[in-house]
């Protein structure tokens, strides 16, 4: 018989793993495509390398933010889980 603590602990760990695993697929592909295009553009127009690099960094930061959100949620689930704290408090009090 599983009690609340085991269910919440297991669910948090599994879901945080899934969050970062699934959530990093799309940003990784997107960043790879953006980088490939930027390298192609720099190869074609080396004079514009400064502008292209700056735009690339800004764009990568934008794309990356979705992965960062997933990471933050995974970290919250593991280290600062509100449901876990609630259940532990209920059990303790």
């Amino acid at each position, binding site marked *: 018989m599983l009690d609340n603590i085991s269910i919440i602990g297991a669910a948090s760990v599994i879901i945080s793993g899934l969050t970062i695993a699934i959530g990093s697929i799309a940003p990784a592909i997107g960043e790879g495509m953006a980088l490939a295009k930027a390298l192609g553009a720099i190869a074609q127009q080396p004079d514009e390398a400064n*502008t292209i690099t700056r735009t690339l*960094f*800004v764009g990568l*930061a934008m794309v990356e*933010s979705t992965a960062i959100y997933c*990471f933050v949620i995974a*970290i919250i689930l593991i*280290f600062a889980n509100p449901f876990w704290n609630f259940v532990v408090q209920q059990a303790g009090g």
Partner: protein
Amino acid sequence: MNISPDSIIFWENGFFKLNATIVFTWVVMAVIFLISWLATRNIKVDTPISRWQNILETIVQAMRGQIEDIFQQNPDIYLPFLGTIFLFISISNLLDFIPGYSAPTGSLSTTTALAVCVFFAVPVFGIIKRGVGSYLKNYIEPSPMMLPFNIIGEFSRTLALAVRLFGNIMSGSMIVAILLSIAPLFVPVIMQAMGIMIGQIQAYIFAVLAAVYIASATRVHETEEKK
């Protein structure tokens, strides 16, 4: 394991808590202040300038050039704000290799404060450059239908700015902490070096994104210029 320096408390007296974020923010401020004070004590125009003046001039000149590239106009009124943000984030990430120090940018409170500064700087610079009416008209372009989306975008990009910096810096220190418990001999050093590089890139990205947001608010559209 601490996920943010907020939870390390040095001194507590009733309501007032002195946590690591505040203390290390002061440390960074002191470092910036001392370096600039020492370097600008005896600045001069003629050629044998001191090494400190040289490096400071190089940094300021580089920032000025970058801002000018983004804005395509005189960067002087933007330089103090964007340059300060860049230097603060850059120094606070750079000092991360010192033992016992934890970067204040690894706390969501610091990054939120910086993002809120950018949030308020956008309308301030927009109104200075374009006037109230022209700036507010920005929100109902290309059509009044876009008003709610423009307002949501204003808030969501502030959130993204804060969480991006926090997530990157916090993940850097967390990876080092996890590696210390798995392979403590040599591997954390490499990751720490990479963390410093990521910190510099994030400082650059934060400043450039702030510049891009301000530039999009201050830029007068070509149709308006023709009138």
